[in-house]
């Protein structure tokens, strides 16, 4: 009896330690990520929360930190978000549908397309900025306008949206497609009535996460000419700034009111916008989640 239980105990010891070590490693990884985020948020909130007020939200920027606001930047960021959605979702989902449902993978050009898209997702955003400057602002002669900024952000996140949409479309089981085909549906009907509705939650989540990444971008916008001082409301084909650019400009100023307090309050506004969008993504995913 005791021999049996002793045997059991000794053979387990190593596994137990390996398990504990692994658990410790997992907790450490979690702690590092969490602590970084927490430090960032706490520090920003302490510095800037008292300046988050109607002046910040409703006033244009000013040389006097007491009356300086970020209204043009906030509005432009919202405009950028809407334009981005309108441009990226149709293009991204369209590309994803082509690659998943129509493309014959035995053809070299389709494989080339796939590799290209994956590589584009890894291109640094400043490179997109240079492209935007050379091609959109100068080449097409759009000028340094909001639309050019939205277009370059679209190019920046398009690969991410395509990849997310492809994953969502691929997750729709083939049995659904076969069932629809077997009833006499055409390819268009199968895609439009079965595959896309089933893939909507995944596509929505991926698009929103990509969008929130794009709205935090500064570098490409600086290159296509987001100005640091804009005192009027943005228009589609006019000068513009954006919240990250505004924050960047404030941080670069020598006065502590700008550098610390106002910049921190701008960051709070940006964080609230982005967290709200992520929350929407999570809500959408849970709301429309499918079981097979």
């Amino acid at each position, binding site marked *: 009896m005791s021999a049996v239980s002793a045997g059991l105990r000794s053979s387990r010891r190593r596994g137990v330690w390996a398990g504990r070590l692994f658990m410790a490693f997992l907790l450490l990884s979690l702690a590092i990520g969490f602590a970084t985020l927490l430090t960032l948020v706490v520090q920003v909130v302490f510095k800037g929360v008292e300046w988050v007020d109607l002046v910040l939200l409703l006033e244009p920027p000013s040389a006097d930190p007491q009356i300086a606001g970020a209204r043009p930047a906030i509005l432009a960021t919202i405009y950028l978000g809407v334009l981005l959605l309108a441009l990226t979702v149709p293009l991204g989902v369209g590309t994803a549908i082509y690659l998943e449902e129509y493309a014959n993978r035995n053809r070299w050009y389709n494989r080339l397309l796939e590799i290209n898209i994956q590589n584009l997702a890894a291109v640094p955003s400043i490179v997109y900025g240079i492209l935007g400057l050379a091609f959109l602002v100068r080449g097409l002669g759009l000028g340094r306008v909001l639309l050019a900024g939205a277009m370059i952000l679209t190019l920046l996140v398009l690969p991410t949206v395509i990849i997310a949409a492809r994953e969502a479309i691929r997750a729709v089981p083939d049995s*659904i497609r*076969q069932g629809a085909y077997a*009833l006499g549906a055409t390819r268009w009907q199968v895609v439009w009535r079965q595959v896309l509705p089933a893939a909507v939650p995944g596509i929505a989540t991926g698009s929103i996460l990509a969008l929130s990444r794009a709205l935090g971008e500064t570098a490409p916008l600086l290159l296509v000419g987001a100005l640091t001082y804009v005192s009027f409301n943005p228009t589609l084909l006019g000068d513009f700034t954006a919240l990250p650019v505004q924050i960047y400009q404030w941080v670069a100023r020598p006065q502590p009111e700008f550098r610390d307090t106002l910049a921190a309050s701008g960051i709070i506004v940006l964080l609230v916008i982005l967290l709200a969008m992520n929350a929407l993504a999570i809500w959408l995913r849970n709301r429309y989640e499918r079981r097979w």
Partner: protein
Amino acid sequence: MVTVPESQTVPVTLPGVNVDAVAERGRPLPARELREVVFDVQGLGVSYSGNMALQDVSLEVYRNFVTAFIGPSGCGKSTFIRCFNHMNALIPGARIHGRILYHEQDLYGTDVDPVEVRKRIGMVFQKPNPFPKSIYDNVAFGPRVLGMTDGLDERVERALHQAALWDEVKDRLKASALGLSGGQQQRLCIARCLAVEPEVILMDEPASALDPIATTRIEDLMHELKRDYTIIVVTHNMQQAARVADMTAFFSVTRGGEGQRTGILIEYDATDKIFTQPSDKRTEDYVTGRFG
């Protein structure tokens, strides 16, 4: 084309008397010249990227018969049944050799539209594959994509009645089809197929994912349905073939030069003959359980 007189196709039973399934199936088959040929398969073969999966199959499928395809795994019986509604065309690299005549029309003629074929030849799959939609929308999907939307409610109700599912779902037509049990889901898939009023129903191992009670219900349904439809069923289960089928085709595997497995038709005859006096030794070995 000779139409079979009523008296010769319908077994002599009293109305309302639930005859034993085997006894009903065991009726004498109408003489060969009295059967109406639905499919005339001539030297059919299927290859995937050059590998022959099935070779040289010739047989006739008769109207209002249940025809079963049996055989060991890999013998090409599922590949074969998928030829009747062009489902193999969805697999890249698949090629069809030989001919299938459907009412004397070449099913793979150059001007044949797969959508038209699938409208007349419905299919039920191995694993129940209801769409992630309501019960009603599942049944209505086929009529909707084919533009048969007049009297849709009646059509849906009729199909659910025919599939012996109406009483179980009539109070929750708007509920998700994914909430049904496996057996109910499979009957829903049968209803979905019946809603477009096909002439032929292909069933690819329709009961292999179901429990014995649900299996019995599907088999009973096949007896009911063959009065109005022609049914082809692939099954792993020999007892099932013996219970439901009028004609049975036995397939087996041959190994080619490079270990390549190719399915071939060994024997095709009345079910009773196949199970009691097969003319081929390989059929006898299989049905007596000595092989496969």
